[in-house]
């Protein structure tokens, strides 16, 4: 019915956070964050891409099934008061589960890249000494 609105809400928040992070990193001067792995704005951009991509494609599916229309109130469930309750229930269950799943998968991606970056750190430190000349 409108489950994609929950990931969309999360996408709006994370996009704002990412933009704020980018500004902050530019002020600090990105060098330090890049040396310690990927910057947080870059990591958040992965989450934003997954959330916005999923939201856009799910919105198309809802339009296809006639659950979203281009005229107010946009959600067909809103036209019938009896359908508002089930719609909110779907958002609270399926919508929240979707947002949590995407966020957990993103968390795993960040964790794996962080661990790999940390594993690569000693090699970077050793290489100049080993290089000689």
């Amino acid at each position, binding site marked *: 019915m409108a*489950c*994609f609105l929950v*990931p969309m809400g999360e996408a709006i928040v994370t996009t704002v956070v990412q933009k704020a992070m980018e500004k902050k990193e530019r002020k600090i001067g990105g060098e330090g964050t890049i040396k310690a792995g990927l910057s947080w704005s870059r990591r958040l951009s*992965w989450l934003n*891409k*997954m*959330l*916005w*991509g*999923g*939201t*856009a*494609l*799910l919105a*198309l*599916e809802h339009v*296809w099934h006639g659950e979203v229309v281009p005229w107010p109130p946009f959600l067909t469930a809103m036209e019938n008061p009896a359908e508002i309750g089930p719609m909110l229930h779907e958002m609270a*269950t*399926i919508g929240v*589960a*979707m947002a949590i*799943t*995407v966020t957990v*998968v993103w968390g795993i991606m960040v964790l794996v890249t962080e661990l790999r970056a940390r594993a690569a750190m000693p090699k970077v430190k050793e290489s100049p000494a080993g290089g000689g000349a």
Partner: protein
Amino acid sequence: MWLIMTALAAVIATAIWYVKSPEDKYKLGLLSLFFWGATLMWLVDHVMAYMTEGGQFLEINLDATLLGVAIIVLALFVWEIVLLISDPKGVLKKALKN
């Protein structure tokens, strides 16, 4: 059906992105993340609907297949718009100069 088609598109886009990496000139990472985000969301939707309502896990019919095609077309369209705006080869810049 659209779940399977989006998952297939995600797998193919990720494979191409991996072959071309570490360079991501054509923003294939963006395309694969778009598809993975949608695949995860539909997977949750299908699993929860199957657990609560039962019935078929996958809808396999012409309408569902056409929806799958439309979804892939939309994702490719958005990706191409982003690609044209960023213009990594400078093709549009050159065309506008001439």
